């Protein structure tokens, strides 16, 4: 069963590029706020988001709209990949401070 999963992953890998040349967008967490609070990205295109956490405590980038959930350590940086999005507004938040730290991704 382990072999099966490995093979499936390989097959799926073959159908996409682990691309180094994707458009890159930067997001920062500072004083428990996303900077910029609204980020515009192109719709219909893969991209990657680099999230830098400048706060002294860990945060978790989470979005049901975007189907993403990832911890970013204090003073750390993470990379999150996104498949092409339909035009629209996507909400995300810091799950560790869900009520105060929110942001929007606007795809157009």
């Amino acid at each position, binding site marked *: 069963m382990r072999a099966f999963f490995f093979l499936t992953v390989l097959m799926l890998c073959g159908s996409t590029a682990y691309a180094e040349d994707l458009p890159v967008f930067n997001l920062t967490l500072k004083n428990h706020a996303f900077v910029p609070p609204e980020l515009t990205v192109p719709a219909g295109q893969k991209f990657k988001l680099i999230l830098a956490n400048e706060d002294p405590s860990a945060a978790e980038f989470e979005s049901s709209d975007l189907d993403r959930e990832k*911890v970013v350590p204090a003073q*750390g*940086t993470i990379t999150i990949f996104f498949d092409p999005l339909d035009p629209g507004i996507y909400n995300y938040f810091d799950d560790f401070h*869900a009520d105060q730290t929110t942001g929007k991704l606007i795809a157009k």
Partner: protein
Amino acid sequence: MFAAALIVFREVLEAALVVSIILAATRGVSGRSAWIASGILGGVAGAALVASLTSYLASLFEGTGQDILNAVICFVAVVLIGWHVIWMNKHGKEIASELRRLGHNIKEGRSHLSMLAIVVGLAVMREGSEVVLMLEGLWSGSSTPLLLGSFLGLILGVAVGALIYAGFTFLPIGKLFRLTNGLLVMIAAGMAAHGANFLVQAGLISAHGRRIWDTSHILSDQDGLGQFLGALIGYIARPNGVEVLGYFLTITLIAGLIFWVNRPSQPLSNNRM
């Protein structure tokens, strides 16, 4: 304080659910409590370890180390849970006596129980590391309400888990194992879906379609019953292609292996009078 309580409660409940189901699934096996308890302790230690290594992990694999680790944890759990379910079905005919035999058959029993202990440990580790990191983050404020809230969340999570286990004990053992097998298959399927999404998050595979269906207006998976079902049967309100694929592929694979393992050409196992 309540924010901390709620977050800790949710995470603890997800782990407690897996623990209760596995406890119920091993009812009657001697020594299983010790194994499961050590699984929990191992998971707690693992959670603290993962939390402390977060910065290092995040930097691995070009910023996707965490996703890779989470994906590996998910897939390992899928394999171990699947193994247990297939084994239980194979030896299903005289389950109660079989399990007592398992408890006494030290070698076979130990390897089986250690696998389940690992599953428990992985569940605790995954949820626990999030709790540790979140608590670390909130620590910068005043810590007493934080500690109280976390403790409250922990107690409540364990209590609900215990209630669920108690509910299981009312079932006769044959029905109980059928139920726990069914639940474990769905838990495994849900973990496969999550594992697949971690690989998408890491940019290793494409999602192959977003929002295959959208039932978020019927039942959101963000909180309440929807989130509980998410932990129990792997419910996702707006799954992408690989999540759906992972989920149903896992169920099909486990069911297929159960049928294959139980195929009629097998000689009957030793006749127990």
